[in-house]
């Protein structure tokens, strides 16, 4: 046992550290409360323990121990379900919901983080196991932390599209952003209020892949949700007129976001929209196919 103490200990330490490092929370990454942290830290610890005992178990010819990894995978899939269910339940109380796609994306990330923890712990313990050099294994742990961060970094909207301020105006009762139709607003006082307090941006996709990604309704809902999370909204349950809306220009495929934020600041809105994550489930790549490339020119 003693001969593996350092190996397993270091694996668990680096794995748990990796989980803690990936636990940064910002406006879109739940958890935002202590109970959530405790849950994820404990699961991270378990993942780290599993990762670091794998190699010593094999060295001891305890092959059955490896099957525990399969059990772990099952466990972490459960994490994903847990996150999905709790976020979906919370979503019902949101004025501007995150939407299914966004929730699925967040839930998936939480599952993946545990696998990254296993890999980090496995790498750390393996290096110590083979070299008997704790410092080197700690360094490996940090290297894997860096790799994990790289892997966790998804694309943002700013990478696939250009975001610029749009002009809100009415054509009769029809609200438009530049040439893109948003909705029909009946009440004259609401129209005035929208013109006074509303903001709009237009999102120009950089290529055909970006265009089809942006046309996904889940992606659009995520844009509306992030804009609201950052700038607030004047919408209340009895003023559906102020609901943020994301509509497309059917001819050229650009996207317009209209919202009535609590803080009217166009620079902030552009910055917020540029940082909206591109959802994994919304990503499309027609340009990777031959037919898509033919259509593009």
């Amino acid at each position, binding site marked *: 046992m003693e001969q593996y103490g350092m190996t397993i200990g270091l694996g668990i330490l680096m794995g748990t550290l990796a989980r803690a490092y990936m636990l940064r929370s910002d406006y879109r990454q739940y958890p935002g409360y202590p109970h959530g942290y405790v849950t994820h830290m404990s699961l991270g610890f378990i993942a780290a323990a599993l990762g670091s005992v794998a190699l010593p178990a094999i060295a001891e010819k305890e092959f059955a121990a490896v099957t525990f990894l399969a059990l772990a995978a099952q466990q972490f899939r459960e994490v994903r379900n847990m996150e999905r269910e709790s976020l979906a339940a919370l979503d019902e109380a949101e004025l501007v919901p995150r939407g299914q796609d966004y929730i699925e994306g967040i839930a998936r990330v939480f599952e993946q983080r545990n696998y990254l923890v296993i890999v980090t712990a496995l790498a750390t313990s393996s290096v110590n196991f083979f070299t008997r050099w704790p410092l080197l294994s700690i360094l490996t742990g940090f290297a894997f932390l860096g790799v994990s961060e790289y892997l966790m970094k998804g694309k943002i909207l700013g990478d696939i599209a250009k975001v610029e301020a749009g002009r809100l105006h009415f054509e*009769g009762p029809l609200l438009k952003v530049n040439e893109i139709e948003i909705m029909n*607003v009946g009440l004259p006082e609401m129209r005035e209020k929208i013109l006074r307090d509303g903001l709009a941006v237009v999102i120009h996709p950089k290529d055909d892949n970006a265009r089809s990604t942006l046309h996904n309704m889940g992606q659009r809902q995520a844009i509306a949700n992030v804009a609201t999370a950052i700038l607030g909204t004047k919408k209340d349950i009895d003023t559906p007129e102020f609901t943020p809306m994301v509509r497309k220009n059917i001819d050229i495929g650009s996207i317009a976001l209209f919202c009535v934020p609590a803080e009217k600041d166009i620079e902030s809105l552009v910055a917020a929209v540029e940082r909206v994550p591109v959802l994994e489930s919304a990503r499309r790549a027609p340009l990777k196919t031959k037919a898509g490339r033919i259509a593009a020119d």
Partner: protein
Amino acid sequence: MAKDQLLAVVTLNKEAVGGDVPIFFVSTEEEQSRVAGTLAQVMKAMVHDVGNGVYIIVKH
């Protein structure tokens, strides 16, 4: 149940409407927007201008 529901009609033009939705007849545009605004607020719905002197109240 359909997702979008037509809840009521507020009209200046008696000829333009009919059917089994609640219809509110009004005589001025001010009255029309006031009535429509109140109804929309009460029912947490939205007012749309159909264009021919008719406002519809739709729950989205």
